[in-house]
Structures are given as structure tokens and as C-alpha cells.
């Protein structure tokens, strides 16, 4: 079976994206407090989504719809950290103490 370089790239990006989303899920479940969980929600998840969307853009090729994918990536990169900040700030305003490994 022949595999083109494009297909290799797509599968690579997909694997990367799924890996980071996996890390996100593990982090959200495993980390000890809200702040730490918000880290994964804003960061690893953003990268995971970014990589997967790049794969999608590669599949779609050069079309106007691809612009939407790029827009989607840009949008996620702006809104995800903002949302995480809003959540973390809400937690801080509720006086939720950050978890410490020595307490």
C-alpha cells in the first residue's frame, strides 16, 4: 500500500493532537485542585486541538473552507486561555486555596 507524505503528515498531526488531548483528560482527572486542572484545560488542550485542526486543514487542502479551520485554530488559541483565566479567577474569588504538596 502506497502512503503519500501528506498522509504521513496528517496521521502524525492527528496522533500528536490525540496524545495531547489524552494528556488533558488525564490531567483534568488526576491533578489535585482547580488551578492545576485549569492549566491542562487551557494549555495541553489548546495544543491538542491546534494539532488536530492542522491535520484537518491538511486534509482539506487549499480551499476557502480551510480558512475556516485556520480561523478556528486562532479562535481557540485566543478564547481558551481567556476562559481558563475567567475560571481560575472565579475560583480565586471564591477563596479556594491552592493545593500544596507539603500541606
Amino acid at each position, binding site marked *: 500500500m502506497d502512503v503519500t507524505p501528506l498522509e504521513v503528515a496528517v496521521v502524525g498531526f492527528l496522533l500528536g493532537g490525540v496524545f495531547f488531548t489524552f494528556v488533558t483528560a488525564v490531567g483534568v482527572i488526576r*491533578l489535585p485542585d482547580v488551578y492545576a486542572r485549569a492549566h491542562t484545560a487551557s494549555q495541553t488542550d489548546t495544543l491538542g486541538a491546534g494539532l488536530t485542526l492542522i491535520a484537518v486543514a491538511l486534509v482539506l487542502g487549499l480551499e476557502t473552507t480551510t480558512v*475556516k479551520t485556520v480561523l478556528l485554530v486562532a479562535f481557540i488559541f485566543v478564547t481558551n486561555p481567556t476562559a481558563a*483565566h475567567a475560571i481560575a*479567577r472565579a475560583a480565586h474569588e471564591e477563596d479556594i486555596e491552592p493545593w500544596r504538596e507539603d500541606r
Partner: protein
Amino acid sequence: MVVPVGESVTLRQTVTYAVREALSGAGEPVVHFVAPVAWHDIGDVAAGVREETEMLLERVAVWAREDGDDDLVVETTVIGADTYLFGPDDYARVIATYADDSGIERVVVDPQYSPGGNVPILRPMEAALAERGLVVDEAPVDRPTRRGRLLRRGGALQFATLFGISFLFYQLLGGFAGTRFDVATGAVSATLVAAMLHRVTFTDRLGLRTLGRRLVRLVAYVPYLLYEIVVSNLRVAYVILHPSLPIEPRMIETECAVWGGMPLTLLANSITLTPGTLTVRVHGRRMMVHTLTPAAREGLFDGALERAVRFVFYGRPALAVATPRERDDARIVEDDDGADGGETVVSGPAGGDA
């Protein structure tokens, strides 16, 4: 006449203009320079504000005597010290009260001085002054004001920009079909959006050239940010997947060396995007950042992101500012359990609208 003064780049020119007007007018040449002082008695936040204001008034008086002749009478006063100044309206109120008490009807304002914030939703101080029956005279200063005034008043450029963005977005969703229906509905929607929001969307008064330069530098910034994101993401992934979960979370407080809404937003979001650090609160320039690992903390103390954001907004010269570590501006919040939740953030009267 009354001249409200405050820190502004065109203050010197305003003083010159006011003095000239006072001398050329009929009657005794008197200029009252008043400096509204805000929040000077609220804890540590504004302890030095009163002294600073008085020094500013002294400086203004010296300038005025430089420009005027021996007949000129210069009065300087600190006003508003006994009340709570928040928006432009409050400033206008204390200035108008002072003018009434001294029997003055004319106010000369410095167009670059906008106390109480220049948020487009709030009325500018000039409008509030005029409403109180005073003759408001704007000092003709050069500097970027001319173009800025145009933008803030008419908002034509803002309107056009917002219209363009909305219209393009609409066409993009329609797949650039270019049918008459798409163009017409797109134009209507974009007009609605722009009409409602063009005063809100852009708060900075910018020239096209500054905007262009910033955009170019922003484009240069993005790859750097992406690189940082990928590298530190791998590090955090290692930490999360490690069986013993080796994290040492700490809250960090840092006074960052960037100014203004957009730069702070970009910095806060960049900090959140680079793994291991998460902006929790922003109060003015003071940021609370939650950090997951010691390595992430070190990165924050070295201030690479801060430098990059400064570069985007202020260009190459701004790179030279010292790092947070050298400025001694960053520290780990060590709140002990006792002290009522350990709330260490000093919040200003403006409330937590960071």
C-alpha cells in the same frame, strides 16, 4: 481661567497656551492650575500620589512663570482630596465646584489629559464640564493628538475597520459565494455590528502606522510563542503522565513591566498559554500567576514573555527593561493558613474589573 492639570505628554504646551490666553484677554491675568488628586488616602496603593501631585503643580507653576510676565498671577491648588473620584464625571464635578467658588467661567483643558479613564462608554470630562455651564476651551497642542481626536470623536476609522472585519467574516462563512443575497445581508449585518460596537471594540487611539508596526511585530511574535508552547507543553505532559505526579504548585505575584489594556491582555493570555503558568488575577500591573512546576516559575522570573510582549507593542527600545528577577518584582505568595484566607492582593476602589 481654570486649567486642570495631570501627567500628560502635552502638559507643557497646554500651560503655554493657557498663559498666553490669560495675558491676551481683558482684565487681570490670572491662571488657576488645579490638580485633581485621586485615592491618595487609600492604603499603600496611592500613598505617594499626593506628593507627586504637589510636585507636578510646582513644576507647572515654574513653567507658567517662564512663559508669562510679571503681571501674571498663578494659583495652584490640589482639589478633590476630600471626595471620591472615579469617572470623568467626578473630575468634572470637582473642577466645576472650584470654578464656581472662584467665580470663573472658562476652563482650558489639555486634550491628552483624560482623568478617570478614557473608556469610550464614559463621557469624556470635557463634555461633562460643558454641561455644567462652563466655557470649555481645548488647548491646541500638536503631538499625536490631532489624529487621535478624529478617531475618538467620529470613530470613522473604527467603524470602517469593524465593518470590514464583520463583512469579511460573514463572507467567509458563506464561502465567498459572492451572490447578491450574501453581499446584501452581509452588509446589513456588518453595519449593525459596526454601528453598535465601534465605540467599544477599539479603546486605543492609534494611527494606522503604529497599528501596522504592531501587527508586523505580532506576526514575528506568534512563531516564538508557538515554539514556547510546544516545548513547555511537552514538559507539562511529562509531569502529568509521571506516575508520582511531581508538581509543586505555588501562587506567584508579579508586577509586570507592561502598561495598558491590550499589552496586559496579550501578556496574561500568553502566560496562560505557555504550560505551567496560569494567570489568576490582574490588578493594574500586578498579576497573580499560578505555577505548576519550579521550572515554569523560573521561566516567569526570567521574563522572556514579558520582553516579547513589550517588543510587540513598543518596539526594540523596550527590550532593555530589567527582568522581573532583577527588578525584584516577583515573589511567591506564602500565605499561612491563619490570616483570613491570605488575601494579599490590594484591590483598588475601582473593584476587581481586571
